[in-house]
């Protein structure tokens, strides 16, 4: 099976697209920069987070939010390929069919490395620091990327399912918005009303943000990390299956 070399070829193709269209990365960075500015300087003073400066609290949340929002580009990219017929070319080649999708999600994960690095640099400017040693810091970065990678499979499925760029653009915000705001991204879940807490405390973004935050700054790591990993694997397998099925249908 030519899965691995084909994935690398398709990743290269998509990375070339990223390089030729740098505005995608620029736009992917505008919203986190605005959110950092908004929450840190506007709301940050009034938000009470236990045991951490607000910058330390905010940056892990922003990183997870960014990979989630960035997933929309996966959906848009695939819908674009579908509508222009490039996918038909790939489907007519004796190549691994899964590689079209894995190459796309891989390239989007690479984009996540760039955007998250910029966010950390920005964090350092506003006073964010790692308080739990370099290894946990690297681990937290990897965790965010893994979550970003698994979520691209959800968006890949969505892009293939909706097919048109316009529909995808309209639809990507729908899941991303409640998932990032009804979560521990910007403020502790404990202060939310009970009916909302039952959702926000148990959904994947909260788990991943809590695990990332604990890995960066200390605190209970094992629980949220295990739950995060389960979510990551679950999302990837579940939506990976449906994305591939959708792709095969053509």
């Amino acid at each position, binding site marked *: 099976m*030519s899965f691995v*070399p*084909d994935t690398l*070829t*398709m990743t*290269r*193709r998509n990375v*070339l*697209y990223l390089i*030729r*269209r740098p505005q995608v990365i620029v736009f992917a960075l505008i919203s986190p920069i605005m959110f950092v500015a908004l929450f840190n300087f506007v709301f940050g003073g009034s938000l009470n987070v236990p045991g951490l400066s607000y910058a330390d609290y905010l940056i892990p949340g922003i990183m997870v939010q960014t990979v989630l929002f960035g997933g929309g580009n996966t959906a848009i990219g695939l819908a674009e390929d*579908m*509508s*222009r*017929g*490039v996918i*038909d*070319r*790939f*489907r*007519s*080649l*004796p*190549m691994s069919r899964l590689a079209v999708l894995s190459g796309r999600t891989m390239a989007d994960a690479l984009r996540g490395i760039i955007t998250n690095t910029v966010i950390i640099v920005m964090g350092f400017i506003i006073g964010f620091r790692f308080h739990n040693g370099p290894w946990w810091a690297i681990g937290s970065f990897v965790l965010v990327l893994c979550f970003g990678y698994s979520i691209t499979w959800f968006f890949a499925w969505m892009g293939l399912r909706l*097919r*048109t760029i316009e529909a995808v653009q309209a639809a990507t915000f729908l899941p991303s918005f409640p998932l990032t705001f009804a979560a521990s991204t910007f403020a502790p879940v404990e202060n939310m009303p009970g009916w909302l807490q039952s959702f926000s405390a148990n959904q994947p973004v909260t788990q991943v943000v809590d695990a990332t935050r604990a890995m960066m700054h200390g605190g209970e790591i094992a629980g949220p990390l295990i739950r995060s990993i389960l979510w990551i694997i679950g999302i990837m397998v579940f939506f990976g299956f449906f994305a591939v099925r959708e792709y095969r249908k*053509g």
Partner: protein
Amino acid sequence: MIQATDVVKHFGNVHALNGITLSVGQGEVFGLLGPNGAGKTTLVRILATLLKPTSGRCRLGGVDAHTNPMAVRALIGLAGQNAAVDDLLTGRENLEIVGRLYQLGRTEARRRAEEILERLSLTDASDRQVRTYSGGMRRRIDLGASLVGRPRILILDEPTTGLDPRTRNELWQLIRELVADGATVLLTTQYLDEADELAHRLGVIDHGRIIAEGTPDELKERMGGDRLVAGPADPADLDQVTAVLAEVGGTSPYVDERRQQASIPVSDRIQALLQAGQLFETRRIPLRDLAVSRPSLDDVFLSLTGHRAEEQGDEAPTGRTRR
């Protein structure tokens, strides 16, 4: 090389293909001629393993497309309105990536890309992004991408739709060269002149059915064959011209007053032409025009389907949005 047996495709209750059977031999160019919505693209997508038929079988190069699509993909090259190239990549990058997906090594893929660029006269533009290419250049690089795997079977879906006449001619020339190299070609077109120009054999498709099949000449023959047409230099001689044609053809000629000419069906066109020439000569009737005309494929299409080829049929869904 290509064998389709009773291929049926329904999209819900739209019947795109209603039992297509066709066979294309090694080195042959088979033209599938029909208006928009006739089912051409659906058939192409099924043959190229992009779509599964509702029923029926397809074999390409002896391989069953349904049970072994991967082997079929290794045999075919697909180009035309359904395949496309990457706009933001250069011509060379496009070909190299396709080469890599055919499992060619890095150097081999580069060499193959170079070879194809040269053949398509795109060497000068090879390092420019495809979005800067003209329409004709895009079609050429698209065709080039389908050649990377040295396909034994080329499937070209409306290869020249939307191109200007000069670019069309260039592309035709290129396709003829590929055929000379031994490729088997199935091409779809809605242009009669294109089918006439390129195809050895034609299938006329309408409403998901092949309604006529044969060489372009055979199809024209079916229209009642050749006609002898003559027009006098002086309009006053039209009656005399008509009389000569009647003598040659043995029936009463059709007279077109507006175009100032008469015509008559003939069985042996050379004999008829010589005989008429001699009569006009001896009777000293100066002519504006004397010719044998064969029915055009447009006439064929009209008589077979009851509508002209350029008319738009109902657009059949192809399972995805069009560009």
